Structures are given as C-alpha cells and as structure tokens.
C-alpha cells in the first residue's frame, strides 16, 4: 500500500483513480462531477475548491465541517459532517457558515448553585418551545430538545451523558426559535456536573499525596541508577 501515492495531492485523488464512476453533485448551488463514494469534503477538493473554514479534524470529532445537504428530489434539508459522509448522485450541499451564538462566561468554581445559576447565565434556556428543530438538526443524533429540558430541570447528569457525543458543530443553534444554543448549555451543565456533583476519587488523592511524600523515592533511586541493559531486563520481566 502507498507506493503509488507519494504526495498528499495524489493521495486525495486516489479515490478518483480507483472508482472511475462519477456522480453529479451540487456544491453551493453549482453542479460538479465528482467520483462516486468520496466524502463531501473530498468532493470539495476534487471540485477544485480551497477549504479553510470547514475543515478541521477530518475525522468526525471537531464539528468544523457542519454541512447542510439534500438528496435528489427530496425537499428535506438535512445536516451532516462533510468529512464523514459519502456523496450520492444528485446530492446538493453547502457548508454551514459560522453562527454567532452567545456563550455565557462563568467561573465554575465560584458558582454556588449551578442548577439555579443556569437561568442567569442562559436565561433563554427555559424558554424552549419544544419545536424539536434542534434534535432534527443534530448530525450526532443527540436528543437535543430533551437535553435542554434535562438541563432546565437540573438533571445535569443526564445532560452530560447525552451530550458526550456532541462535536460542538453548532447546527442545533441556528434553528432554535428561542435563541438557545443547546450545545453551549450542555457544556455548562456537563462541566458543572463534573465540578459540583461528582464524587472526588479517593484513590487519586492518595496517589498524589504519596508522590508528594516521596513514597516512591526508594524505587526511583533503585531504577535510575540501573544501566540501560539492567533496565531492559527489568522492563522485560514486568509484562
């Protein structure tokens, strides 16, 4: 593998050599022929477009490539991550532009009652009108609407579980008729859950204290004066 693809340029084009079959897609309203089966991101490059805003991790984790798309003859506009979705013939798509959602500023350690403080930081959160547009917009299939209500009702644990998959693409925010940015509410609730409502692990505290007290010093003294060969034998024997 790889000997035929020695530059990044060739690497992205590889898909086109392998899959000769082409499909027509519409990118920002304009038709382009691209190889069947490539990701929307690769289709952009294939179409000759420079991608700056819109590409990040390229692995489905950062949300930079939030995209609106529609399949042939279907009026429904859906959302996806362009780095993690394959093109089909007749598909039409555009990147989502950056959306100016408001993020509240807070110092988590100073909050006295995070569940109540939510209403000051995000006063729009309880105004959710249950339209479910956010849930439908989420490419990670999170029940976003439910999450907003869980946050409002103070079930921060549930919020943190539900939004563990959230890639912060922000696609749930522009659709909200109550001007809520559900992902930002969720980050707040999840962090508050960690800082205020989660047990402190005792084992960790013990380990930190032991290190501070020099409990491992003897081991270090013994290990660090070993020759490389002796170390090799020590490590080989501890599998």
């Amino acid at each position, binding site marked *: 593998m790889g000997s035929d693809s020695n530059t990044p340029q060739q690497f992205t084009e590889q898909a086109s050599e392998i899959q000769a079959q082409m499909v027509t897609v519409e990118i920002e309203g304009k038709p382009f022929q691209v190889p069947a089966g490539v990701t929307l991101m*690769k289709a952009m*490059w294939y179409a000759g477009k420079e991608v700056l805003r819109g590409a990040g991790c390229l692995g489905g984790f950062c949300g930079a490539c939030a995209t609106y798309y529609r399949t042939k003859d279907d009026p429904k506009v859906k959302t996806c991550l362009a780095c993690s979705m*394959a093109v089909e013939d007749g598909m039409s798509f555009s990147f989502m532009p950056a959306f100016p959602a408001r993020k509240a500023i807070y110092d988590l350690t100073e909050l006295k009652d995070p569940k109540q403080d939510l209403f000051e930081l995000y006063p729009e959160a309880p105004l959710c009108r249950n339209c479910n547009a956010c849930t439908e917009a989420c490419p990670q299939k999170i029940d976003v609407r439910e999450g907003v209500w869980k946050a409002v009702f103070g079930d921060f644990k549930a919020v943190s579980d539900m939004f563990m998959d959230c890639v912060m693409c922000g696609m749930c925010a522009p659709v909200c008729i109550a001007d809520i940015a559900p992902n930002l509410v969720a980050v707040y609730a999840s962090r508050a859950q960690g800082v205020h409502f989660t047990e402190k692990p005792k084992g960790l505290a013990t380990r930190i204290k032991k290190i501070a007290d020099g409990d491992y010093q003897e081991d270090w003294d013994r290990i660090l004066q070993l020759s490389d060969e002796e170390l*090799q034998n020590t490590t080989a024997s501890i599998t």
Partner: protein
Amino acid sequence: MDITAQQNLVHQTRDARRAIDFPKLSPAERDALIKKYHPDHRGHAYRPIKFGPNAGDSTVKEVATLLEGDSSIPADFNLTPEYSVDVLVVGGGGAGCAAALHAHAAGSNVLLATKLRLGDSNSVMAQGGMQIAVGPDDSPVQHFLDTLKGGHMKNDHDLLKVMVEEGPSIGQWLLELGVLFDRQSDGNLHVKKGGGSSKARLLTCSDYTGLEIMRVLKDEVLNQKVPLLEFGAVVELLSDGKGTCTGAVLQDLDNKRHVVVAAKSVILATGGIGRLHIQGFPTSNHYGATGDALVLAYRMGVPLVQIDTFQYHPSGGVYPEQLVGALVTEGIRSEGGHLVNAKGDRFVNELDTRDVVSSSIIKECEEGRGVRTAAGRSGVWLDTPLLDVAHGPGTLDKHFPAMVRQYERYQVDIRKDPVLIYPTLHYQNGGVKIDVTGETPAPNLFVAGEASGGLHGRNRLMGNSLLDLMVFGKRAGQTAAERAKSLPQGALTLDHVAKFREEAKRHHVSSGLNSPMVLPAYTRQV
C-alpha cells in the same frame, strides 16, 4: 472476492480462536520483526538532512525537504509588531490550551494563535484514553518502566520521570475543570488496560476522551477570555539576532495578511506530521498536522531528536473507502478484539506495542495473507463482534459509541461484522529537543506536545500523549509566564533566517519550496 464472503470466515473461526492464547514475542523476535517490516526501516524512504542542526542525520524525505525549505518571509520584511505579549502560544490543541490556561493563570498577557479554529486538532480525536498511574496496584515508577519498554529504552529519562510523576495531579486539574472521566462504582477513576502497559492505567471518557477534554479546555479558554487569533498560522519565528526567540510572524489565513507578534516567550504547540503522508501512508491526523514546529524551530538552530521514527497506528480504516486512514480505536484490541488474517487465523498478540502489531499486519499483507478490497487495498480483520460475544450484547454500544457511529454512517454494523484495518500514519515519535520545562536550546522558545521529542523514545505508548500535552503544556506555560515578569522584550530580527539562507546556498539547496507547509495541497488543480 466480495467482502461479505470473506467476513464469514471471521465468524466461523471465532470460537476456535477464542480458545487459543496468543503469546507475546520475545524482545529478540520483536526486534527482528520490526527491522524487517516496520516502515521506519525502509531505507529508500530516508535520506540525510543536508544542513542545519541535524546535518547528516537521516529522516524521511518528506520531512528533510521541508526542513531544508525556505522561509516565505523576505529579508526586508517590516517587523513592526501588531501585538506585543508576554507569551505567544501557537496551536489550539491540548498542549496549546493547557499552556495558554496556565500562563494566563500565572498572570501573563497571552495570545493564543491557531491555524484553524480553537480545538481543531489531533487532540479532539483521541479516543483511547490518557495514561495516569492511579490504580492501587500501579505506580509512577511502573508507568516509567512500561513507557521505556514501549520506547525501546530510548526515552529521555528526565522528561519521562516528570511526566509520570505529575500525571496524577494533572488528572486532578482536569477533574477540577469538569472533565468527566469514567468512574468505578466506588467513585474511583475507572482504568483500562492499554497496549504495551503492564497495568490498567488508561483514564477514559467512553471513547470520546480527547473530545471531552477539549470541550472543557476550549470552554475554559473562552471563559478566561484568553485573546485568540483563529486561522492565524505561524509561518516564521523572530529572534534577537543572538539565538533568543522574541516573537513570530503569523499569517491570517482568512485574508492572507501577515501579523507580527512581539513576545517574551513563544510556545509552539503545533502537533504532528500526519498530513505529510510520509511514505504515501494515509493518516489519522487533523487537517493542520503538517509538522510546522519542526521547520520553525529548525530554522532557529534548534536540533530535533529521534526525527527518523514515526508511529504507524495498527488500526487505520481500509474499508469502506471513505474511512481510509481514519483511526479505528485501539480500545477494541484492549477489550480483547482479535486481529485475523485472510485465512481466519490470529497472527500477533493484539496487546503488543503498536510498532510490533503494525509490523505484523504489514507482514501478513506482504506475504499474501491480507484481505483485498475492490479498491485494491489490503488489510486484516479486526473482530469487533467478538466483544459483544465475549462481554455480552451491548458492549460495543456502551463502550464504543463513537466507533459504532463512525461505521454506521457508511452502513457498516460493527456489532455484526468485523472491520478491515491496515496501519495508518499516526504520530511523530520524536520532535523538537526540549528540557523538563519544555524549553528548547533557543532561549525563550518552548515546545509542548506532539511537536516536541525525546519523551516517547522510538515508539509512543498508547495514552501517553494526552498526558504529555497536559504536563508539558503546563510546564511551558508556567515557566514562560514566570520569566515574563522580569524579562524585557528583545529585538525583533530575521537574522536566523538570513543565516539559514546562507547555509542553504552553501549546500546548494534551492528547491524553491517554502516551509512550513501550513495546509496540505489537497485541492485538485482543475
């Protein structure tokens, strides 16, 4: 042959395979396997670097060419600074965010510049977890020894000792910021066993460890109002003419304008090299992983260490085509998933170190026991359904939701069918030389995270990178902040660039190539 037919063999052989314990290789066998099959040992892919601090050292051609490349900044460039700060942090991944937060907390005036958006990085993709010796049967010393073994004894002992000893307090810091690590029923941190480790030591947030850490760090950077310059790529460093770093030149990628930053210290946290597609390998890395810090530091006269060794992660996607190179989490193997060749046989202990496992996969494929896809690629099976069989239905859903989703998008159900994998370019084992504070031999130039070298030896152990980022991001940030209190801002010159250009001329290097690369050239010339 059609993929489904080949998958059946994996189902048929599962029970028989489960009955066998596959032994780990002896040190001698490991060495022999690696020498024969690991890409680090393909001589024709390497060449000596022609000049500069590592003149004569061998590295892969892709890296050598960039190191010898020319700066895009002309000699007569106007160096009037637009920003003047205590600490310039370059890179918005884990190391950069940690450095910025700690420098800010220590009272510094910080600017965080990053090539894409804050958080668009390798860090956000880390799934497997973060190694911290917290278990009652574990210790920092044990962590040290495991890492040394993984790194073929070539790790810098001082860097490594610092990392393992500060691990637990880093865990504490992240918990205090609200990172939700998985817990045991008694409230203690849940630890998983990772490849090459003698003890269960991986802290996880299901299979979204990097995402969870980065969501929290990003949120905190915003809460702390650390000044940010997104889509701001550093393209050159500045020096006082005597080898001390005094700032940098950035390019605003939105409008191509150059921005000069005067800084008492610069912390490069620009991550790895995957997008250089070394030896033509696909990669698991983010869009901006183009090794920029290597180039920038090298031109300042800073040596690189172990820059001839790279990590090819054993499990990169092979099929479907959209997932080529994408990382398939190591967690599957940690939880007992088998690797299976086209004959239905296991061929390596799946929990051996990455270089061993990758070499053995390459061996299977080169010796004709790989599985071919219609697109002409080859790989071996990773038996994912085995996890649900062994640990009960729902195991994959519960512990690997990200991976279930990753494949579901392309109509592949990993609960029912195994997936095809082949090594993918994943990590730069070496990097810029640093000391225990993250400082390079060029005063006031710090490097933290994947861009730095020495800590991991010749093969990084799974989960050690996330810890590396946090420990050395913190140390660099705090040291730079402390120093800024008494340090005057030095003069801004491009003298080191002029010197480098003379060297290039003397060695007849005139490729005309500008470096750093900043972004890979994926756009087709139409």
